[in-house]
């Protein structure tokens, strides 16, 4: 039966064929986007894997016999210690700050994030300088207790674990804060009404409920620990990553290094899938509370325990190292270090550009996962975040080789003589490959909090995908986007091996400066650029804290 014209529409509107399978076309489009992003990020990894063909079999044998068993043990021990310590510190401090009131709580709330501004390797060399045999602490102790005093060795797995934990706990802290602020109140009330004491409620209700956030934070921490080279070298701890470096620089075999790195990649992939599984099952739920209610006060002297705990962590992780850096910087004062100032500017610029690019890419990826869900997009999204799991120098080689390949292939294909390697594009692409994981987490979480019905409502009101993105998704995602940008910015500014390898001429960052100075044992001279790095890191940190405190405001479901 032919459709009768409706006067209001001015004639029969034939079913627009573009509208016909637009849903299908949209899904294909997003799938293509995901694959493109994944390809971009995975390309360096693939290039790296192709080098495995160069691996030296006798080398592998040697490594298996003499190096890898011990290295596996150390790496496992280190990772376990760091994961445990950061979980305890991060979750514990987050709980304290989120649910209780005690002297200084408001300050500690943001101050506990400060260690993010201090790179782990800087903390490492400060710690070793302060605490080792020849350092001021032990020298003073020997003056007190006699020259034969022998303390446990600082340069050991334990020492490295301590430094890494103090450096990385903010990731867990930040994410657990998010969890406890939004769920904590309800959880506690429900648990207490069921007769659990406060402590029981924490262990049996609040902590399990925060598992998804905890898992996400721990994933970042474990990946960072696996990929870390700077800190473990200072402590002379042999980990998987140092074995990779040894194969490359000492044994002159990048192929073997690539082979070992691929193992790390596998571990990283498995970890990421596990975390996703853990998170996925728990899902995201929004609560009725609009703002996190202020915590309950602690009575009596125990308040000061809480303050002491926070202060202690802050001292060890930030204040004391900062003080030492200031002492070093001022003692060797040779006038204003113009080079470092310029480097600071470069650092900030590169960081901001990278943060913007990473967040935009993460947004595309998250959007694609939402619009075109399925196994393919899932896998691609996981792959795209793998760059975080392998050591920076190794990824740098992959990026570099991939780019030089492009430099050879592109002019041949297009006839235009243009170069990517050595330009800012190169280093920014490398940053995206490495830090997409950091940006993706918060963005994905924010995206998941936007209920499907909002999308549907917007569509029914006539909003196409562009209008939905601009008027609905972006405004609601803003807190997550800023969190992601701030996290990426802080990480990029501290990054060293990739920057070293892909930076264009004249773009030395503070991290590069620090590396050059410390590679020659000039720790004191590295103090000033380290301080500059901390200072530039404070800007994104302030943003991070603002988001952590104000995120729970907007809700997509009505209060009960």
């Amino acid at each position: 039966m032919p459709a009768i014209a409706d006067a209001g529409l001015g004639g029969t509107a034939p079913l627009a064929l573009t509208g016909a399978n637009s849903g299908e076309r949209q899904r294909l489009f997003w799938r293509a986007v995901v694959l493109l992003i994944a390809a971009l990020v995975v390309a360096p990894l693939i290039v790296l894997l192709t080098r495995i063909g160069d691996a030296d079999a006798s080398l592998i044998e040697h490594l298996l016999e003499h190096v890898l068993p011990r290295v596996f043990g150390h790496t496992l021990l280190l990772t376990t210690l760091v994961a445990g310590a950061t979980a305890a510190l991060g979750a514990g401090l987050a709980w304290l700050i989120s649910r209780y009131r005690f002297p200084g709580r408001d300050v500690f709330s943001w101050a506990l994030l400060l260690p993010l501004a201090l790179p782990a390797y800087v903390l490492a060399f400060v710690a070793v300088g302060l605490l080792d045999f020849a350092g001021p602490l032990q020298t003073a102790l020997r003056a007190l207790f006699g020259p034969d005093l022998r303390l446990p060795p600082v340069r050991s797995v334990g020492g490295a674990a301590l430094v890494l934990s103090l450096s990385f706990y903010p990731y867990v802290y930040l994410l657990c804060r998010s969890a406890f602020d939004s769920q904590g109140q309800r959880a506690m009330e429900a648990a207490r009404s069921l007769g659990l004491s406060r402590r029981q409620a924490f262990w049996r209700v609040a902590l399990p409920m925060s598992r998804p956030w905890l898992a996400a934070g721990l994933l970042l921490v474990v990946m960072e620990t696996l990929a870390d080279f700077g800190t473990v070298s200072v402590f002379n701890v042999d980990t998987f990553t140092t074995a990779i470096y040894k194969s490359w620089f000492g044994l002159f075999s990048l192929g073997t290094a690539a082979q070992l790195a691929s193992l790390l990649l596998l571990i990283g992939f498995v970890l990421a899938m596990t975390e996703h599984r853990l998170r996925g099952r728990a899902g995201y739920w929004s609560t009725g509370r609009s703002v996190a209610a202020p915590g309950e006060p602690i009575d009596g002297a125990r308040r000061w325990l809480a303050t002491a705990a926070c202060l202690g962590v802050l001292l060890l992780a930030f204040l004391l190292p900062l003080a030492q850096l200031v002492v070093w910087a001022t003692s060797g004062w040779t006038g204003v270090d113009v080079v470092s100032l310029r480097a600071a500017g470069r650092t900030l610029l590169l960081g901001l550009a990278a943060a913007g690019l990473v967040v935009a890419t993460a947004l595309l990826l998250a959007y694609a996962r939402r619009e075109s869900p399925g196994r393919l997009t899932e896998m691609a999204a996981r792959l795209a975040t793998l760059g975080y799991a392998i050591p920076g120098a190794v990824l740098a080689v992959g990026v570099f080789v991939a780019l030089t390949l492009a430099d050879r292939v592109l002019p041949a294909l297009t006839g235009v003589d243009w170069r990517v390697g050595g330009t800012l594009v190169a280093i920014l692409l490398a940053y995206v490959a490495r830090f997409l994981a950091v940006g993706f987490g918060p963005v994905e979480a924010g995206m998941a909090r936007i209920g499907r019905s909002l999308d549907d409502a917007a569509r029914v009101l006539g909003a196409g995908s562009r209008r939905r993105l601009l008027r609905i998704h972006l405004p609601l995602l803003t807190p997550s986007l800023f969190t992601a940008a701030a996290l990426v910015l802080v990480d990029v500014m501290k990054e060293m091996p990739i920057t070293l390898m892909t930076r264009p001429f004249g773009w030395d960052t503070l991290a590069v400066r620090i590396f050059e100075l410390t590679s020659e044992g000039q720790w004191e001279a590295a103090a000033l650029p380290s301080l500059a790095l901390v200072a530039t890191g404070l800007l994104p940190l302030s943003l991070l804290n603002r988001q952590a405190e104000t995120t729970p405001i907007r809700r997509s479901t009505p209060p009960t």
Partner: protein
Amino acid sequence: MSRPQALFRTLGAVALALCLLPAAPALAGEKLVVYSARIEALVKPMFDAYTKETGVEIQAVTDKEGALVERLKAEGANTPADLLITTDAGNLWQAAQEGVLRPIDSPALAAAVPANLRDPDQQWFGLTVRARTLFFNTQMVKAGELSTYEDLAQPAWRGKLCLRSSKKVYNQSLVAMLISEHGEAKAEEIVRGWVANLAAEPFADDTRMLEAVAAGQCAVGIANTYYYGRLMEKKPDLPLGIFWANQSTGGVHINVTGAGLTRHGKQPAAAQKLLEWLASPQAQNLFADVNFESPVNPATAPSAAVQAWGSFKASPLNVVEAGRLQAKAVRLMDRAGYR
């Protein structure tokens, strides 16, 4: 749009605009690109002097030596680099092995650089010399008790030795030279002896190790001379003494900072000129003195500070051995448990 949003966006746009700037093409004859594993602070004075003298601008790209070699390999014929500088002979050997260096024929360089400090195949040339020798706590040890590297493996030194990590190339070169002199089996014995005598975990760098010796954590250690120079300059009162090892046997182990022309560099003539200048007497002092090293050019005297350490017999072995045997040395150290 909130302010942080606006700020981020503007800066992002600026950054992207910067990205679109084309890579500057190499201007012939006016600019040289140097890939240097030696940090900028230690090469910039020379390059500035060269620019002042000849007007040729030099762009130094610094990175770790392994990364630089990989870069050169990956870039192939497209490389912008004209010269490669590394801080040890082992990596120069490796670079030559990977085929990224170009052999040159230069009588000037042959004259300026002694034969055992340059590549027999003329692909690279040493520019400064540093020794890796023994340093001791003057309050705990008398110079007369010391003799050779090998001697430090003896049980008499149990708990008194400090070493830097085996992961750093300087120790790898040292062990490589031991292998070259004594063969693998004996060298492994020596290294095992060292490990047994360690007073503490190997150190991440020479300076920290020297400070540990001065503080009394151990009695003797092996380090590069220039770290000693720098440390004593800052803290002259440290009870730290220098001892030239193996004077009655093979001579002190030495290593070089060296350079070679890149195979596919676009300006070999200009690069060669630079290299020859770096080996010439005017540059040699500049190069070496800034870092308490000795010049290779026999026509140049080392700085007063270095001379104050006394003269020493250096090992006459060609430093190329350090590279040739580096992989063996690393494996040996792994087997011996020297971390």
